[in-house]
């Protein structure tokens, strides 16, 4: 009985009901949407590692003016010296500003066969660069590079064409198939040009190989291997600063960041929920004072204070649950479109949905209590007076 009556009172004051809902819908909607998007992002990152493999180690190094840091061989030897390392891909990158209307940016990556093996690229034409290419001006184009550079033709037709890079004529020797971004090394293959590492180093005598990725042998402990890799570089390049990270650590870090973000967003969302709750309380107080007569009549007809209290509590509960429901719907829709836009895999975080439903119910009861109490303690005679 309370429920149907609450529903019709809310329906009778549609406009006001909708206004009261705005705060809570936005509050709940944004919290859940943000939490869901956060979950999807960290899932996407984890997916990348699942595709690359969790046997990956990234190595970042810095050393003051060391010639050793420019020797690809020193890196390549590690696979022979340390049995736990399967392959290593030292690389170096510079950004190229393209002079077109979109002001696109391409990335030039100096690398060799090791990088191709590491990422498990696939070619649509030609071949990848390797260490035998030494300083030769050869380039392999990422899937979208030809378009950015305004080159026409099928991948096969692109092979052999020359382009100008950093003032030098460079020959295209291969074109890659589209490939997912490698966030672990901050490289987007599709908008990258891969050239021999030595060519890139020759451009600038102060350039160092500051970053590498390695893959460990099967059945070895990646963490132990990472430790060995670090020791190796410290021994070979005295005074070097290294930062060796395993895929597991990277995933854990990303998760941690996502979790922190969730906590932060939840805090912000909670504030908007409190604002929404106060909105509900306000509307309910207005409703109580407008419906004094109704309360008086009900009391005169024998309704108890308890009945009046439950009536108004039910109303605010229903109001906030409705807000919660709309908020959840809003968040699911938002998340869906954000995921679509970014080509992420869409999923709903059920914890967030239950959290939203629970919170909105809590808000309804908490912020509905004061108005309900006021309604219940109204004096029926006063309420019936004042014509």
């Amino acid at each position, binding site marked *: 009985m309370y429920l149907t009556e609450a529903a019709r009172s809310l329906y009778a004051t549609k406009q006001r009901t909708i206004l009261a809902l705005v705060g809570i819908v936005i509050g709940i909607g944004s919290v859940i949407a943000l939490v869901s998007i956060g979950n999807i992002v960290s899932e996407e990152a984890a997916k990348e590692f699942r595709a690359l493999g969790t046997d990956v180690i990234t190595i970042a190094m810095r050393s003051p003016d060391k010639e050793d840091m420019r020797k690809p061989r020193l890196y390549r030897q590690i696979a022979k010296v340390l049995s736990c390392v399967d392959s290593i891909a030292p690389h170096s990158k510079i950004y190229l500003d393209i002079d077109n209307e979109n002001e696109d940016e391409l990335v030039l990556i100096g690398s060799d066969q090791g990088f191709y093996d590491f990422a498990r690229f696939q070619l649509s034409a030609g071949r990848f660069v390797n260490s035998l290419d030494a300083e030769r001006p050869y380039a392999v184009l990422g899937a979208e590079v030809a378009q950015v550079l305004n080159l026409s033709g099928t991948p096969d037709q692109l092979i052999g064409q020359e382009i100008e890079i950093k003032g030098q004529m460079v020959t295209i020797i291969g074109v890659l198939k589209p490939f997912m971004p490698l966030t672990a090394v901050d490289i987007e293959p599709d908008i990258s040009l891969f050239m021999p590492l030595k060519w890139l180093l020759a451009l600038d005598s102060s350039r160092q190989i500051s970053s590498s990725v390695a893959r460990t042998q099967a059945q070895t402990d990646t963490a132990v291997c990472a430790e060995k890799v670090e020791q190796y570089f410290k021994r070979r390049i005295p005074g070097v600063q290294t930062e060796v990270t395993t895929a597991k650590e990277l995933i854990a870090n990303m998760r941690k960041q996502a979790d922190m973000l969730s906590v932060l967003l939840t805090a912000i969302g909670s504030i908007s929920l409190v604002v929404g709750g106060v909105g509900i309380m306000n509307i309910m107080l207005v409703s109580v004072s407008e419906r004094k007569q109704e309360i008086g009549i009900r009391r*005169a007809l*024998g309704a108890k204070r308890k009945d009046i209290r439950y009536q108004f509590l039910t109303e605010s509960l229903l109001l906030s649950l409705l807000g919660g429901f709309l908020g959840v719907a809003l968040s699911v829709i938002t998340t869906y479109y954000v995921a679509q836009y970014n080509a992420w895999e869409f999923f709903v975080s059920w914890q967030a949905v239950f959290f939203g439903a629970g919170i909105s119910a809590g808000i309804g009861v908490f912020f509905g209590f004061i108005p309900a109490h006021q309604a219940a303690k109204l004096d029926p005679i006063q309420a019936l007076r004042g014509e």
Partner: protein
Amino acid sequence: MSEILRCQAVERSFTEGEISVTVLQQLGFSLQAGERIAIVGSSGSGKSTLLQLLGGLDSPTQGKVSLMGQDFQGLSQAERGHLRNRHLGFIYQFHHLLAEFTALENVCMPLLIRGDKPASAEAKASALLTEVGLGQRLQHKPGELSGGERQRAAVARALVTNPACVLADEPTGNLDQQTANQVYDTMLQLNQANNTSLVMVTHDLKLAERMDKIYRLENGRLVQT
């Protein structure tokens, strides 16, 4: 004959700041089952105040009001509500129907508050509404009814619980003479059929004369005329 309502040495005064106004004093009266009385008196003499005391909505400053032998003073708010719902019906000058609800739902309300099942409440309510001539108007909201129809719906609401007594505060005060008479006839017919007592406050002496007794409220006391 059993006694429905009894007032003993009732005093009701309102204090506002320093000033205290005594509206009712040394008021005694008793109402028997099936008895129908009119209360007349000038405006502001305390007629509405008296009805609220009789209904247990208000408490006397001194003295005792009892309904069906139970002293309101000794009862909790919830128990008063229960007693009111069981034994009393109210009709006001302004119909006091709830605007958001249909005539049928308004009449059902006291039954639902009492805890009746919706189906049986609706059956009783629609039967009674038909008796007062609103059989075609069950689903209309108060805003869609004429003044006389609203007041008849209010009569139905007061009587639907088969109360021992109906308290009516100028029930026809807002209606033209002819409509007032019709509502009045309906009310008296139903009262008679159910042997319900009636306490009616009115300005209209012609209507008052159709009751068993007429009391005048003067200087805080009831005087039979």
